[in-house]
């Protein structure tokens, strides 16, 4: 095996933080592909530029997603990375593993790939970095026969992902792990065979802490919430105070809706005014917990800046119950995709299409009424559409008022 002199990236093996260069070299010890990836990276550091070409169309039979073609411009100099394709394996919900499962993944990858991975990619998949075109079918047979399937890539449903949820968190308002597993199984076709205008990401967070960044990183953000009161264990409140928490300045004053009060003995919450932000609950988890009806808020549209600026997801459905078999949510997703299919141009994310076509057109298409919970504030300009039906409804209301002598605004 060729030995590369790598003075620049060697400097990234020093220091306390674990080194990715060390990982690449470890993989490169017995693997030509990983070894050439080390040399290739040193070259990038020397010239201050990358040498990967655009992804080519590679994949496994019957699937359009899950494999990302990657070729180097420097294939002759570094033959091990001439082809260096990525395999995305769909991760288990919540990223839980046994060592047995991980060893199985590693054994196959050592046999047919570079031995390099990302645990995990930004969307959530197990990312296996670097293999050749002729190994792809074999890799797929090895993994799928052992229960591992590919994730999404390209213009398809990307691999849904979620927070740790009820697996190890007291705040989850629905079963994030089960929902993501269930949706992934339901939409295998959408995940494996790109048929959308562009990518579509689903992320499920159990509460407003949003440990999976759904509000910023998914076209369809599912954020757990509740409709009842926050239950208070006053004894535990006192324990927090005794241990040094300043309940007034750290909890009451930091409440965004100012719905709490504390007289040194008793903590009170005006629950009707609470916006369920999770600050107090997350700081006093032993003392406070939500109660009553559980479910989620559905927000939509978030994405990174390409093309016309980044977006955070917008509130579309303030509250939805989420219980197996999640029929309402699945029907909603199908309605959304139908509308996107009818209205989106290639490479337009759903948030961008909603901006172009108008929120009203979208909400009407999916059967969601206008609600004040959806907006930060009403529109500021007087340029708006009226349909004939809108005016007829306003006129009918006024006729009714004339009869009753009572205004309804």
């Amino acid at each position, binding site marked *: 095996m060729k030995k590369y002199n790598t003075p620049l990236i060697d400097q990234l093996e020093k*220091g306390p*933080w674990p080194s990715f260069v060390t990982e690449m070299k*470890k993989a490169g010890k017995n693997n030509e592909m990983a070894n050439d990836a080390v040399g290739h990276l040193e070259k990038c550091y020397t010239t201050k530029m990358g040498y990967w070409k655009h992804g080519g169309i590679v994949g496994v039979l019957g699937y359009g997603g899950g494999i990302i073609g990657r070729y180097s411009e420097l294939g002759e100099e570094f033959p091990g990375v001439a082809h260096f394709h990525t395999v995305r394996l769909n991760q288990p919900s919540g990223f839980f593993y046994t060592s047995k499962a*991980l060893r199985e993944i590693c054994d196959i990858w050592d046999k047919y790939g570079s031995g390099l991975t990302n645990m995990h990619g930004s969307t959530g998949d197990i990312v296996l970095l670097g293999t050749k075109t002729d190994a792809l079918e074999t890799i797929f047979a090895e993994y799928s026969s052992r229960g591992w399937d590919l994730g999404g890539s390209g213009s398809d449903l990307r691999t849904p*992902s979620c927070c740790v949820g009820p697996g190890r968190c007291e705040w989850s308002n629905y079963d994030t792990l089960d929902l993501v597993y269930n949706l992934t199984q339901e939409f295998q076709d959408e995940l494996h065979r790109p048929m959308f205008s562009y990518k579509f990401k689903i992320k499920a967070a159990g509460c407003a802490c949003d440990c999976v960044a759904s509000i910023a990183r998914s076209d369809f953000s599912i954020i757990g919430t509740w409709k009842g009161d926050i239950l208070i264990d006053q004894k535990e409140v006192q324990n927090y105070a005794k241990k040094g928490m300043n309940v007034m300045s750290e909890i009451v004053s930091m409440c965004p809706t100012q719905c709490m009060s504390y007289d040194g003995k008793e903590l009170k919450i005006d629950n009707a005014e609470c916006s369920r932000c999770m600050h107090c609950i997350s700081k006093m988890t032993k003392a406070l917990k939500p109660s009553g009806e559980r479910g989620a808020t559905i927000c939509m549209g978030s994405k990174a800046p390409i093309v016309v600026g980044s977006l955070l997801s917008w509130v579309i459905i303030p509250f939805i119950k989420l219980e197996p078999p999640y029929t309402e949510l699945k029907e909603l997703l199908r309605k959304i995709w139908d509308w996107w299919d009818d209205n989106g141009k290639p490479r337009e994310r759903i948030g961008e299409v909603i901006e172009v076509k108008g929120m009203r057109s979208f909400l009407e298409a999916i059967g969601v009424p206008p609600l004040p919970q959806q907006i930060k504030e009403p529109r500021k300009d007087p340029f708006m559409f009226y349909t004939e039906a809108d005016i007829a409804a306003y006129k009918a209301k006024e006729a009714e008022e004339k009869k009753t002598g009572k205004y309804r605004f």
Partner: protein
Amino acid sequence: MALPQRRTDIGPPHYRQFMPPVIDKNYGKWKYHEVLTPGTMVHVAESGDKLWTVRVASPRILSTATIREICDVAEKFCGGHLRFTTRNNVEFLVSDEKNLEPIKKDLAARGFKMGGIGYGITNVVHTQGWVHCHSAATDASGIVKSMMDELFEYFESKRLPNKLRLAVACCVNMCGAVHCSDIAIVAVHTKVPVVDDEKFKNMCELPTVIGSCPTRAISPDPAKKSVKINPDKCMYCGNCFTVCPPISIKNPERDGVAIVVGGKINSLRSNPKFSKLVIPYISNEPPRWPKVVAAVKHIVEVYASHARKHERLGEWIERIGWERFFALTGIEFTFQSIDDFTFMRDTMRTASTFKW
């Protein structure tokens, strides 16, 4: 050797089979948790059962050799059970308290770094960079490594007013969606791309290329059967390159990074926020990007010494005002921080009340 029979559309394995018995038993019935140290926490179930978590850093790029070593540790102390976090840390799930100190000792002896829980800096969300991406304007992993070496004490021990989330994107595609982080590095191009007219005809689709430009800087060049790029309109986003490889935007001397700050994704106290541009350009300086690292460390330190307890970086800045942030950090305010793309109307000040 015959290949095993492939199966399609089976989806991921069911998560439940990978959970330790204590989770299986107390699934959805957790009562509270306590952070014990920056590297350990304990979750307590309604039944009284406890689960200890030991979190360790990962460079995200892992060799199978290291994954196997992680498996060795999990088998020795956790019945083989572990998980990863959404920010790429490894979490060992310890069901028996008597294994807690031994696993910490074992991890330390092997050189694993424990930390990342609570009010400090945890692992960095980042993209592929030069390691594996065609559109990278920098190497994300190299910046992460350099930055975290310098900020390591905030991972392992030193505390901040609240958590501080870092991210690195190697181009404005931002596969890691870094746009809502406390501090994020985003690599930028700064020069109008060059079109290879000969290759364009064979490899690119005219309407797609024109449509890819957010500032309408691209127009047809019928004589050459190619396109022209208007330098007065181009903002170097690279989206044309993504749809058409013969439009080259890489430039080693001009590619660099920008720093954006003040974003968050949770709704605690204040709504989720975008990160905003404060440093428009620093040259790429591999292998350790010293100026980028110094800038990030400086912002962290100014935040640490001025913010109130529980205030995230963006919340602190909103309280004191951006003009005060620039004054306190000494960062030069430039034209690039004034939006001239999509958000000017919302981001200009419309009151005479500000600080000197």
